[in-house]
């Protein structure tokens, strides 16, 4: 069978790759393991979060699928960082993990140019410009481009106490090792590890002991079309806490933990510690938050976030039951850790294409990231670029100064990671600009560059026009803050200036720019859609800071975007052997990428900057 693109793996990265590629005129196959649901959520049942909600909104503005599915399966919404200023507001939604994969499969199946093949893959070989893919049944597939999104399945190994099984997740097979599949691709020498907590029966929890966190009706949906209301019924999450007894159980069983007795050698993420990590690394701290999250409207299980563990089953039973409210709970699925191979992402370009094997793309957890959103973002970049390359169009490269996806991709391709990578807002230099509210303003030009003409493209053109109109009006309208209606705005009394433009008014420290602009527009009976009012108001608020950052950036950019020849640097006698080795590995194309290389010496930068090669 011949295809233009084969996507290997049907997780969040794979789904996003297939979905964006399907918008182009090309034939796509999704090869995914039998008995593993498409787009499933094997760990926490939520989409979004700090830094991640921004990614989901970027995907929405780029025409991705994750935000649509998250809304359709969203059962509890929250705005994180609500009190910390608009720049860092992040949306998180709990999803029904039974419904979400069903919807994902429905959408992909309905795409006319997509074929779903449920089979284990044996090998991939490249002959001239074609990839030959051999499946377990012996079937041969052929394609010009391949996107690999195999998640934690590469040589996956599961740990629960002293039990070790082959597999990418519980009750699932693993795929072969990277070397067996692609003999030409290098993997990182160390394996990564991630873990998941035990799942608890919904009916056996004593909710009166827990703090309820209902869904926040104010939080906006992810998908731009869902301006009002929710797609399905909303439920609550609950907050529980560990106590000295919980931690004692874990501390007393240290020698039974595969992570601490040497059974697991792989590296886990420091920001996602298991309950063992918390117990052993912080011996003085006994109280840790445990968020009890529903896994679905009809599912029997709850997900206790914060107590992932690979301890033996009987120890899991003991420590979970020591938590107030969970005394009589029943564990339905026990927690486990999974070890898997990851590839060396410094071998990838910013399009996520392999530097040496053209046409081969990698995205998601196999690249050493964690999180559905990180996977989705990369899946989009890999899928879109595979399609663009197939159609001989310009590649799609998202700038790190305009998007979290851009931050992530650049971080991945320019450096070795010694632990799983997760997005934080602190990874973004331009945090005041890359916000949730202005995701359309930021991403529209990238979406436009794909040359597609869907409903979303018409919508975004209209959105930009209206936002620009409102913005120019705010810049050009002078007001007196002591006049009606401005004097009635909360916080206006503290302003020490009288005459100013509406834009200046929105910049004042004590004012909420969104409610202020909304109030003014309503007073004059001017109507703009709420998402445009919000995007423009917050943009005005941060304009000064963003401009200042941009000026700094321009200076830096000039330097950073300067093209360099890594070959020339490696031939220079003024550069140290060690630096050359590092440079040869990464092959930086710009000065900016050179600067991001771990362990690069100031002297080398000075030599390159001063062209003293």
């Amino acid at each position: 069978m011949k295809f233009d693109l084969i996507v290997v793996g049907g997780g969040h990265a794979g789904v996003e790759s297939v979905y964006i590629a399907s918008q182009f005129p090309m034939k796509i196959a999704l090869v995914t393991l039998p008995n593993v649901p498409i787009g499933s959520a094997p760990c926490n049942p939520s989409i979004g979060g700090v830094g991640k909600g921004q990614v989901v909104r970027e995907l929405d503005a780029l025409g991705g699928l994750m935000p649509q599915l998250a809304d359709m399966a969203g059962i509890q919404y929250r705005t994180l960082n609500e009190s910390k200023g608009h720049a860092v507001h992040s949306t998180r939604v709990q999803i029904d993990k039974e419904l979400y994969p069903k919807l994902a499969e429905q959408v992909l199946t309905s795409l006319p140019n997509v074929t779903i093949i449920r089979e284990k893959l044996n090998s991939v070989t490249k002959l001239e410009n074609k990839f030959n893919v051999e499946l377990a049944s012996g079937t041969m597939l052929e394609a010009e481009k391949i996107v690999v999104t195999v998640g934690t399945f590469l040589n996956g190994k599961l740990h629960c106490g002293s039990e070790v099984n082959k597999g990418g997740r519980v009750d699932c097979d693993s795929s072969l090792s990277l070397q067996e599949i692609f003999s030409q691709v290098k993997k990182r020498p160390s394996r990564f590890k991630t873990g998941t907590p035990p799942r608890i029966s919904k009916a056996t929890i004593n909710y009166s002991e827990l703090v309820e966190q209902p869904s926040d009706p104010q939080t906006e949906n992810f998908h731009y079309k869902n301006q009002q209301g929710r797609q399905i019924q909303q439920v609550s999450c609950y907050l529980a806490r560990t106590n000295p007894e919980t931690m004692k159980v874990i501390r007393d069983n240290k020698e039974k933990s595969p992570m601490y007795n040497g059974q697991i050698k792989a590296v886990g993420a420091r920001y996602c510690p298991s309950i063992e990590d918390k117990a052993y690394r912080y011996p003085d701290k006994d109280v840790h938050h445990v968020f009890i999250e529903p896994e679905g409207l009809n599912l029997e299980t709850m997900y206790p976030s914060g107590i992932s563990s690979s301890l033996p089953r009987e120890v899991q039973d003991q420590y979970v039951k020591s938590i107030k409210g969970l005394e009589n709970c029943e564990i339905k699925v026990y927690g486990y850790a999974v070890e898997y191979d990851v590839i060396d992402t410094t071998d990838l370009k910013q399009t996520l294409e392999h530097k040496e094997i053209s046409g081969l793309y990698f995205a998601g957890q196999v690249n050493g990231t964690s999180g559905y959103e990180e996977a989705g973002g990369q899946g989009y970049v890999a899928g879109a670029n595979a399609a663009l390359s197939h159609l001989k169009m310009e590649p799609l490269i998202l700038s790190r100064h305009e998007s979290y996806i851009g931050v992530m991709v650049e971080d991945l391709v320019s450096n070795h990671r010694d632990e799983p990578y997760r997005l934080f807002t602190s990874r973004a230099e331009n945090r005041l600009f890359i916000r949730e509210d202005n995701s359309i303003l930021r991403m529209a030009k990238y979406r436009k560059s794909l040359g597609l003409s869907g409903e979303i493209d018409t919508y975004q053109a209209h959105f930009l026009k209206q936002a620009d109109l409102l913005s120019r009006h705010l810049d050009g309208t002078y007001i007196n803050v002591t006049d009606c209606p401005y004097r009635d705005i909360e916080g206006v009394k503290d302003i020490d200036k009288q005459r100013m433009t509406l834009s200046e008014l929105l910049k004042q420290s004590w004012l909420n720019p969104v409610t202020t602009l909304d109030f003014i527009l309503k007073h004059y009976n001017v109507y703009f859609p709420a998402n445009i009012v919000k995007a423009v108001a917050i943009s005005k608020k941060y304009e000064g800071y963003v401009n200042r950052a941009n000026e700094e950036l321009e200076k830096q950019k000039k330097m950073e975007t300067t093209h360099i020849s890594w070959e020339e640097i490696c031939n220079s006698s003024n550069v140290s052997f060690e630096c050359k080795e590092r440079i040869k590995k990464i092959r930086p194309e710009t000065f900016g990428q050179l600067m991001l290389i771990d362990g690069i010496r100031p002297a080398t930068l000075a030599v390159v900057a001063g062209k003293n090669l």
Partner: protein
Amino acid sequence: MDILFSDGPIVACSTSLASNAAINLVRLSGFRDLGSIGPLLDFDVQNLKPRYAHFARIKNLAGTFIDEVVLTYFPAPKSYTGENILEIAVHGNILNTNEIVELFAALPGFRKALPGEFSYRAFKNKKISLSQIEGLDSLLNAKTKNVMEQGRSLISGELNQAYLNLYENFLEHKACLELSTDFYEDVGEEVANDKLEKSFAALEKNIRFLYSRAADNYQSLKDPSIALIGKPNAGKSSLFNLLLAEDRAIVSDEKGTTRDFLTERIMFGENSFRLIDTAGLRTTENKIERAGIEKSYQVIKNSFFKILLINPFDEHDDFETQLKSLTPDLVLFTHADLKDFSEKQLPFSKMLGSIGPLTISLVDSKKNTNLNKIHSLVIGKYMKLLKNNPILIERQVESIKNIYSKFTAYERVFAKNAHDVGILSSEFNILGKKIAELIGIVSPDDVLHHIFANFCIGK
């Protein structure tokens, strides 16, 4: 310091080669393994025990005996430069030492070290900070005792600690800013806010403390000078000679003989001062003289201790203005041996109020205890200023002033926008850059590492 030093093993004599000595120390750094040095030693390098002294013989490649030496091996990273170091104590004849250095420099890959290169490598390998290097420079090249002591303090003493604390405070506050955005669910909102406030207070305290030590007047302590100021013929040169107890300046009755200024070193106790006899302060048409007077004002401004000399028999319409503009530490009346001195001095004394006055007689200098008074006033001020632990290295003073000014800007934003972490951290980054300039480079990963090391984070 040239940052374009290339890598590879280096060798140099680390002791002075100005004259023959009993022992010189030849230092080798940055070699990959001892094997490369083996050919020059009559000693099995595999038996070199780290940080132990070993007796050995040096021979040239032809096998001819050169010297008997003592070897001490410091393997990386536990060495001054952070690289492999071999220290060789050789016989201190200049010719012998040079020959040995040349022998090692001729080994494949080796070369002679450039000035400061060992310290540069230590800096590059994060063994010492930029401020420590400056301290080292002060310690090695200081001309006055207090500058040398500051050097010591910067290398591993109190000042180095103060900078490290500032860096810690910076990291902590930055980490708290990020904590309260990225990880507030892990630690809880209240804890995050509390930590933010506390880390701000700690940072503020340290910055204010450092700023108080970086004030302008401390600069004069680096090479403290005592300036003698006054109208022509006020008796500056006489006092200058009196203090030096030797005839140095030309003293005459004709006004304006000290055209430029004269400088001599003078010891008060164990402290060395520069004694400056400035040109007489007056208006003049003479170009050269005017240039001299201009220069005098500059010298006066930078002086640590200013003595204004007044001849009460002269006209002094501008006495009060002078007091204000020159801010003398001491006003001294001369010509006390003349008749009517007390009467003439009276109007000045009235104007002076709380400052001075001291009077001395220029005739009977040997018995004049007022000279001792000058000594004790100078030493008193000197000790008082030193007690505040002033920072003397100009770059660091400038840097701290910059940090202070950015800090006050951040403080205003912190008060106004305490709720908006995005704005706070954007402003804080500007301050962070200045702090990085003082201490060295602060990488964004430092902040995340700090968070993970100090807070329990987990989803």
